[in-house]
């Protein structure tokens, strides 16, 4: 998988011009100007529970039905039903305008019987609203601590985080026949939405078409069909008109998923020389009314390991996987504790990590990262920094799978006029998949980056009418689609070569396609240009299907990050000065978008470290900051210099990179803050008041 003329280069996104000029139509944008079938489109809206837990005594939609412009009203819960979180769907309407739909919602009468609730994780834990502990043990478990010379123990907290994709969740549905439905959906998983909706509506899957050519981000909460899609489909059928049902930002916050919080009490035992002996972690956290708050094991080598986790149930929306689900939380705990151990041992934290890291790749990465951040020159022990503004350094580790697999059917078509069309029903969740698909085809055909960006080259994705493909989750897309597209291109090229072989009088297996020419590898001057070659086609076009083939991909990546921060010890404001992110992703397909993935992960990691966190009012059971004014995300000014180092290991094949870069950022920042201050903030986000509390300047 060595770099070629198109692979491993910096290829700008094929759809960048469409995106920056507004030509790209997202689910939010579609209407009859982009699809004439959407003429007469109605606006859907969902009425949601205002209470965190209640029995619905009565729900009366009769007034709403008579409101102007209202075309369909549906109750979603029966009388006597119990709702379990504020934001749970109760009823839905479709009306001619968005305002009419909202007005109709307020005309629906709901009589609630309030029931006891709990939204606070600690209080729920105390009340016993929790699962029995799930235990994992390796070696001698906690008994292994008797081999340790030094032990550190501390409790670390991370908040519930919300996915906050730029484009909120939603679907646009139009029935094109009595049993034919087309769905525009902002989704990470086209075919699963198609199959799920077909089941819900009792239709054959091929009667459901799901389209998502462009999407405004998905971090895991768009990884299955959500409740609004069948609601939109039913409203549409009832009203006899297309329905657009896009959720508001508040609905996104309350009812589309979240990343569980975690309270982890971690113990690490080590020998005097720093060799890790034992690790134990007792954790709990809430996935709301769902579960799934457990954390992964540490990536470092611990002969004895004890993990115990308890899921806490609260009256909040169910959790959903969020970019490397629970790994950043776990890394924050583990890498913070390792720095505490390093301080106690009086050891350099990077050396301590290298000593206990089982990954050969990451051991190399620690050294690269340390050099790039200037660790040797800049790092000073905890507590030695003075002055109002203090700088500190910290680091953290990352690991991920990122492999791909079968399940994609790609098509590559070569036309007599030289143009090439690539089709695959995958989706681009913002990672640059469309460009990756294009590169795979161009790579398989031996075409140039210039050809890739020309009008002669067209890539179609984002539609279930195209060849089947899997979901975009777990950083598996690149390693799943690349081999399938390459396979199709390779097969199509083989057919084209047959005609060239005949023309040149050279055996087909001696022909090579490279740099826009097909030529005899024994006599490179003997050949045809791409255009000359395709003109030999006896039909308008040839087309080949391809599937995933083994040997082109790998899995299992390692990474580490270093952060330099500056803390204003008078105000507690933390500024990230620089992040060095060293990651491996096997063979780099597109260096430009690969770097973008790392920058995106680091940015979201900074946000998690310093800003984000769901706030619930335990007295009312409501979320306090269900908007982007009060739920803060990192903006452009919070993004520091990010030095991305991608290890190039083409021999390992294509491996995904979307998730691993978010894992170590918060840990590295927390360690850098602790290094600057000499005291540690053990709870994210690291807000100014927590910094001053840690410094003992504000009472806790």
């Amino acid at each position, binding site marked *: 998988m060595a770099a070629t003329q198109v692979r491993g280069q910096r290829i700008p996104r094929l759809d960048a011009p469409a995106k920056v000029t507004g030509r790209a139509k997202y689910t939010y944008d579609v209407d009859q100007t982009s699809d004439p079938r959407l003429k007469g489109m109605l606006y859907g809206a969902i009425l949601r529970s205002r209470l965190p837990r209640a029995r619905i005594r009565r729900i009366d939609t009769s007034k709403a039905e008579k409101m102007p412009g209202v075309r369909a009203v549906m109750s979603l819960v029966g009388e006597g039903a119990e709702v379990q979180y504020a934001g749970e769907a109760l009823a839905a309407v479709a009306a001619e305008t968005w305002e009419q739909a909202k007005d109709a919602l307020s005309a629906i009468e709901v009589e609630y019987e309030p029931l006891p609730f709990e939204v606070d994780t600690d209080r729920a834990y105390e009340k016993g609203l929790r699962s029995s502990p799930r235990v994992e043990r390796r070696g001698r478990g906690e008994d292994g601590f008797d081999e340790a010379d030094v032990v550190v123990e501390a409790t670390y907290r991370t908040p519930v985080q919300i996915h906050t994709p730029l484009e909120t969740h939603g679907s646009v549905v139009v029935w094109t026949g009595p049993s034919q439905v087309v769905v525009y959906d902002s989704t990470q998983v086209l075919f699963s939405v198609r199959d799920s909706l077909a089941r819900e509506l009792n239709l054959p899957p091929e009667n459901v078409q799901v389209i998502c050519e462009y999407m405004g981000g998905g971090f895991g909460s768009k990884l299955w069909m959500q409740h609004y899609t069948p609601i939109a489909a039913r409203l549409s059928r009832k009203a006899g008109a297309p329905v657009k049902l896009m959720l508001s930002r508040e609905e996104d916050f309350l009812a589309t998923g979240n990343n569980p919080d975690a309270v982890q009490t971690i113990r690490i035992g080590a020998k005097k020389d720093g060799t890790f002996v034992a690790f134990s972690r007792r954790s709990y956290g809430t996935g709301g009314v769902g579960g799934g708050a457990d954390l992964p094991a540490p990536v470092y080598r611990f002969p004895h390991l004890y993990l115990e986790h308890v899921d806490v149930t609260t009256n909040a929306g169910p959790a959903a996987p969020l970019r490397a689900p629970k790994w950043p939380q776990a890394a924050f705990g583990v890498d913070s504790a390792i720095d505490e151990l390093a301080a106690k041992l009086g050891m350099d934290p990077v050396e301590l990590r290298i000593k206990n890291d089982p990954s050969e790749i990451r051991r190399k990465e620690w050294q690269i990262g340390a050099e790039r951040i200037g660790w040797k020159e800049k790092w000073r022990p905890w507590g030695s920094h003075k002055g109002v503004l203090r700088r500190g350094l910290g680091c953290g580790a990352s690991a991920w799978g990122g492999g791909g697999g079968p399940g994609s059917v790609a098509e590559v078509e070569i036309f007599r006029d030289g143009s090439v069309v690539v089709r695959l029903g995958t989706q681009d969740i913002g990672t640059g998949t469309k460009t990756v698909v294009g590169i795979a085809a161009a790579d398989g055909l031996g075409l140039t980056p210039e050809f890739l960006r020309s009008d002669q080259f067209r890539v179609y994705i984002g539609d279930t009418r195209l060849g089947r493909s899997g979901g975009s989750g777990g950083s598996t897309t690149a390693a799943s689609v690349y081999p399938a597209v390459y396979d199709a291109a390779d097969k199509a090229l083989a057919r084209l070569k047959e005609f060239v072989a005949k023309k040149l009088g050279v055996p087909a297996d001696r022909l090579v396609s490279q740099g826009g020419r097909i030529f005899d590898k024994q006599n490179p001057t003997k050949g045809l240009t791409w255009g000359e070659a395709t003109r030999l086609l006896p039909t308008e076009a040839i087309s080949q299907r391809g599937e995933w083939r083994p040997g082109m991909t790998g899995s299992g990546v390692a990474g580490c990050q270093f952060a330099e921060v500056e803390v204003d010890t*008078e105000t507690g404001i933390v500024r990230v000065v620089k992040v060095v992110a060293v990651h491996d992703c096997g063979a780099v397909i597109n260096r430009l978008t690969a770097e973008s993935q790392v920058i995106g992960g680091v940015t979201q990691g900074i946000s998690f470290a310093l800003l984000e966190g769901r706030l619930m009012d335990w007295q009312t059971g409501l979320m306090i900051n269900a908007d982007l004014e*009060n739920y803060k995300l990192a903006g452009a*000014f919070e993004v520091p210099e990010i030095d991305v180092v991608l290890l190039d290991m083409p021999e390992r094949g294509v491996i995904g990179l979307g998730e691993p870069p978010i894992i170590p950022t918060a840990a590295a920042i927390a360690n850098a803050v602790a290094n600057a201050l000499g005291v540690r903030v053990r709870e994210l986000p690291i807000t*100014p008041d927590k910094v001053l509390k840690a410094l003992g300047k504000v009472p806790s």
Partner: protein
Amino acid sequence: MHSFDYRAPKDLEETLEEAAHWGEKGRLLAGGTDLILFMERGRLRPEVVIEVPRTEPFTTLEETNGMIRIGARVTMGQLEHSPLIREKLPVLSQAAGEVGSVQIRNLATIGGNIVTASPAGDTLPALLVLDAQLMLQKKGSLRTVPIDQFFLGPGQTVREPDEVLTEVRVPVKGDRFVTQFYKLAVRSYMDIAIVDVAIGVYTNGDGAVEDARIALGSVAPTPIRAREAEERLKGQVPTETLIDEVALLAQKASSPITDQRGSAEYRWLMVYRLTKRLLTNALLNSSASGHR
């Protein structure tokens, strides 16, 4: 959002007519960056929205006879970039430049920031330090209200429903009046202040403080002046000890609450530290410390 009627008067006279006609049923829009949000959230439900016209005196931005006149529709972006404001009222230029985003500053106006009367309105401490005068006009009458007598509580002011804020007048105090502004927020852009502090000090040739203004935002039901602190500074030659004492008096003037942006204890401490930092920067001329 609820349905409402929209009026677009052409000039001052028509605006006063509309305001008089609709009274409490109407709401003036001078940019709408707060008003529209409040309406979307159902916090305000005016029957009529009256858009203040982009004409004189609402768009005035000029200096006459030692007085800078700023029309109510002058945007945050204009205040941020206007050479006049940058030169003569740098503290206002800086405060305006810290409001929201570029897009918001292109739309949001000084009139809106004042009339919305948020305790966290960023330009308000700056205007308090500058002794701004507010011109409130209604059909047949005009009154001038000093800005420190304008605010009553969050979103509440002495303005009558039929009164229109036409312009803000700020006396130019000259080069010896040194000002400083600090907006404390967790995000360096597009964020609401946890604490705003503005100071202005007028020193005479002997280095003594002749007059002082210390104004605080986001730490009381309204933007406030810390008058005891100001008084303590007057007539004194500043020292570290004095500045510390003054900062403690500023702290005493505040009455912060705990909310999602910060705890009361944290805000309380920040009033002291930031007042001290700004006064030190302005009076002791030590090298500036701290960052945002």
